Structure formats: C-alpha cells, structure tokens
C-alpha cells in the first residue's frame, strides 16, 4: 500500500504554491517599506540640503547668518573625536574580548561579567553622558575637551565592541586553536597568528557599527557640555571642540527656516562621513576574509 497518493499531492501542490507566493510577497513588501523610508529620507535631505553644499560650507565656521554658516569646526571636531574613540575603544574592547574568551576561566565571577557587559550595551546613552560628566569632565578635570568626550563615547560603545569581538573570536573553529597549541605555540602566538586574523572580519563589522554610532550620538555630548558655536579648531586632545551631530542638532532646533537647509547640508556631510567609514570596513574585511 502507498501512503502518498500522487493525485492528492498534485491537488495540494497548488495551494502550497499560493501560500509560498503570499509569504514571498509579504517579505518583499517589508523590505520595500524599509527601503522606501530610506529613499524618502535621503530624497528629502538631499533636495533640501544639496543647494547649500559648497566648499565654503566645509571651510566656514558656524555663523548667525545661515548663508555663511559652515561646518568646519564640527567636521574637524568629529575627526578629532574619532582619533580618540577609535583606538581607545578598539584596544580596550578587543583586549577585553580576548581576555574573556581566551584567558579567563569560566566561573561565577567571569559569567557575571559576561552577562553584564551585554546588559551595558542596552543602557541609554544619556546615562553614559552623565558618567562621563562625573568622571572625565569633573573628577579627572578634563573639562569639555576632546579627550573627555572621546572617553565618554568609548565607554558608550565599548560593550558593543566587546560583545561583537567575543562573538567573532568564539566563531573561530577550535581545531585551529588545537593545531597551533599542538605545535608548541604559546597562547599569545596562537591568538596573534591564528585567532585574530580569523576573527578580524567579525571584529571589524561590530566595531565599525559601534564607531558609526559614536559619530552620530548627540545625547552624551550634550550632557557632557560640549559647546556648539566655536570659531576655532582644536589643536590637541585637551582643547574643547564641537562635533557634527551637535552642530546639526543646533541648526535644526533654530526657528529660522533657512537653518533647516543648513542642517540638511550638515546631515549630508555626516552621512558621507559614515559611508566613508563603512567602506573602509568593507575593504579591510574583504582583505582578511579567508575561508575556514
């Protein structure tokens, strides 16, 4: 006796195919909606701000007059901020991840630490701003400097970098570790020569996302007390500065309609900045991407 009747199968086949197309349609729609929102956003900002984009916009300082307002201080300030955040957050973040995954024994204390690092990733950025204000600005008397804001931002994105790096390190096959240790390599040699090269694509993906967040975040900078109207460039990490999101926030909260245009131009610059960083990440990732 046969359990499967071909006629039944054919009859049901049509219904199954229809269900398949319905779901395909739903998923496509979801993707399209997200894409649409993005396109509308880009369209609005570009049509609004493109007219104001010019070399002057990039080389002028902020101004009371919208037609003269430029983004120079904020752009350079954001670069300075990155110069502090990227090395600080990467070294601390990847270092912690290596320690937790490769060196730390699994016990209650380290389990507790692991769980809480993930929790920290969910803490609102304002709270990190308050932390930065208390520790870096006041206690360590760094003031509203690049260093104080940079450390604050580093703390903010550290949990994300640690978790992403842990994930990347954990996904390196254990056999590679065994193979290296089995030849008398030390743990450190194994980490540097085998684990990190294999984990770098994953580490970078997480880290660049985190750094992008640091570029775009406004709340911690406001809490720390970073000024907006600045007519000079910082000449070192101890100088005060302003950053792209601060400047954009300031422009967009002004009553004059003309400043909305300036804000849109600022957003275009910020997005170009992010795009640039992401492409660097993609390039490095492709360079290191190896099969295993």
């Amino acid at each position, binding site marked *: 006796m046969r359990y499967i009747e071909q006629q039944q199968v054919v009859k049901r086949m049509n219904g199954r195919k229809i269900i398949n197309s319905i779901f395909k349609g739903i998923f496509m729609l979801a993707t399209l909606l997200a894409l649409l929102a993005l396109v509308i956003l880009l369209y609005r900002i570009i049509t609004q701000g493109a007219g104001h984009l010019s070399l002057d916009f990039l080389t002028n300082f902020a101004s009371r007059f919208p037609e003269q307002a430029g983004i120079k201080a904020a752009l350079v300030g954001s670069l300075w901020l990155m110069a502090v955040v990227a090395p600080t957050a990467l070294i601390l973040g990847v270092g912690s991840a290596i320690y937790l995954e490769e060196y730390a*024994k*699994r016990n209650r204390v380290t389990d507790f630490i692991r769980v809480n690092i993930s929790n920290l990733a969910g803490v609102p950025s304002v709270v990190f701003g308050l932390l930065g204000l208390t520790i870096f600005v006041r206690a360590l008397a760094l003031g509203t400097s690049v260093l104080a804001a940079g450390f604050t931002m580093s703390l903010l994105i550290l949990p994300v970098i640690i978790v992403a790096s842990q994930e990347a390190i954990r996904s390196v*096959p254990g*056999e*590679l570790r*065994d*193979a*290296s*240790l*089995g*030849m*008398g*390599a*030390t743990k450190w*040699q194994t980490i540097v*020569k*085998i684990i990190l*090269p*294999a984990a770098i694509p994953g580490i970078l993906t997480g880290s660049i996302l985190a750094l992008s967040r640091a570029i775009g975040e406004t709340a911690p900078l406001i809490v720390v007390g970073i000024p907006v109207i600045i007519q000079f460039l910082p000449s070192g990490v101890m100088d005060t500065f302003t950053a792209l999101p601060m400047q954009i926030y300031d422009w967009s909260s002004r009553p004059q309609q003309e400043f909305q245009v300036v804000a849109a131009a600022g957003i275009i610059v910020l997005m170009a900045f992010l795009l640039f960083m992401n492409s660097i990440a993609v390039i490095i990732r492709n360079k290191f991407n*190896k*099969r*295993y």
Partner: protein
Amino acid sequence: MTMNSTAIATDAVIEQDIVSSNSVYKTNQLNLWYGANHALKNIDLDIKENEVTAIIGPSGCGKSTYIKTLNRMVELVPSVKTSGEILYRGRNIFDKSYGVEELRTRVGMVFQKPNPFPKSIYDNVAYGPRIHGIKNKKILDEIVEKSLRGAAIWDEVKDRLTENAYSISGGQQQRICIARALAIEPDVILMDEPTSALDPISTLKIEELVQELKKDYSIIIVTHNMQQAARISDKTAFFLNGEVVEYDTTDTIFSNPSDKRTEDYISGRFG
C-alpha cells in the same frame, strides 16, 4: 629550540635505537577525570621509540583522552583532573616546572579531522618553524620542502604552495597537517584516528607514510580500525572503559591475545 640542536637530538635518537630500544613514554598509574567521569583508570604503558604503537578500543573507552594527555592537550578541557605520572624521556610531564610548549614542540600531533590553517600551504607548513623563531626565508623554504617530502605530498603540491590549504582534498589536507607536524622536527608524533575522515586511497597513503616515518620518529596512533592497527603497528594497546586490558606486540594481540575481552573485541564480537 634551534633547528640545529633538534637535528642533533634526532640523530642521537637514531643511534640509540641501534644499541637498544628505549622508552619515549612511561605512563605510571595514570588516572584522569572529566569532572566526576573517571575516564582513564590506572594506566601503565611503556612506549618504545621508533615504533608504531597503536591504541585500539571501542568508542568512548578513552583512546583520545589518553593520547591527548601525552602532550597535555587534554588540559584544555577545564574540568580535567589527573593523578599519576607520565615520563617523557625520563621527565614527568605533569611537573610544575615542565613547560607545556616545550613538550608540544617535541611531541607533534595530527588530529582526527584535517585542520589546516586558513593560510597558504607554504604558510601552514612554515607555521611551526616560524613560531619557534626561524625567519630566514631560505631555511624556511628548505624546511617546507623537506617536510612536504616527508609527508609524501611534495609532488602533488609543489606548484601550488601559495594556494590556500583549503583548496586541496581532505586526504591531501591531512598530509599537509602531517607535514606541518614534521616541520618542527618532533621526536614523537601523536595521531588520533588520522584516517577516519579520509577515503581508502588517502588512507592507504597515510598508512604507508606512517611506516616510512617510524624510521625517524616514534608514532602513537589511535585507530578504531583493527585491520589498520594490525597492518601498521609494532605494539598494540587495547583500551576498554578507561583501562588498558592488554598491551603487547601487535602480532601477539592479534594472533594470541591473553585476555578474553581482547579476543572478543578483535574478533568483532563487540565494539
């Protein structure tokens, strides 16, 4: 360790072998636990140099655990506790002062599944010499060629040394792993079921290779293929439930075992 002193040590080993056959490993009353699981029980084994020692037994009897204890890789499992001693060339490898990296430099290991690094064939083989400090390109070239020849794979890969080791077949990958182990000029080679993931022809090649290698190295090989043990080994240890039931020359084990359980196992009555 420099390559020179290693080479001299290997020569000395060969000379000694002519005079008398020495022990490389003496295991005395070894016990090992994974947490509460008593995986190795009172193991006593005396392993001779320049011989192939096969370890056979049913799955889960502790073969892998034992061979991984010989280079202390088993300690990577956090719950492991041991007692007893393992003397490698007369020194207890569990001694606090015994450097685990030094031990693993003398005792190479080939794993069950080929595990090349995601690097070129050349870089795979050069990995060991490099981590032990050899930078000279010419010397590295020589070591790589010698090791690949030693692993009987030179002719197959000599034109594609810069290709990723993942681009070759599983059997070839396993011989690359053997070449990689040879490149640090070890004294002992541990192999944990090195052919279980391979096709019959690759298996045959590796078996022939083992015969060739025992001239220069002492080889300890885990296998659950009894014909393989009979074909390639000089001594055989039969493990069961974490104990050594019988340890003797391979001929004796397979033709005239003294323990009933050994006889049952090799005649295929269980396992």
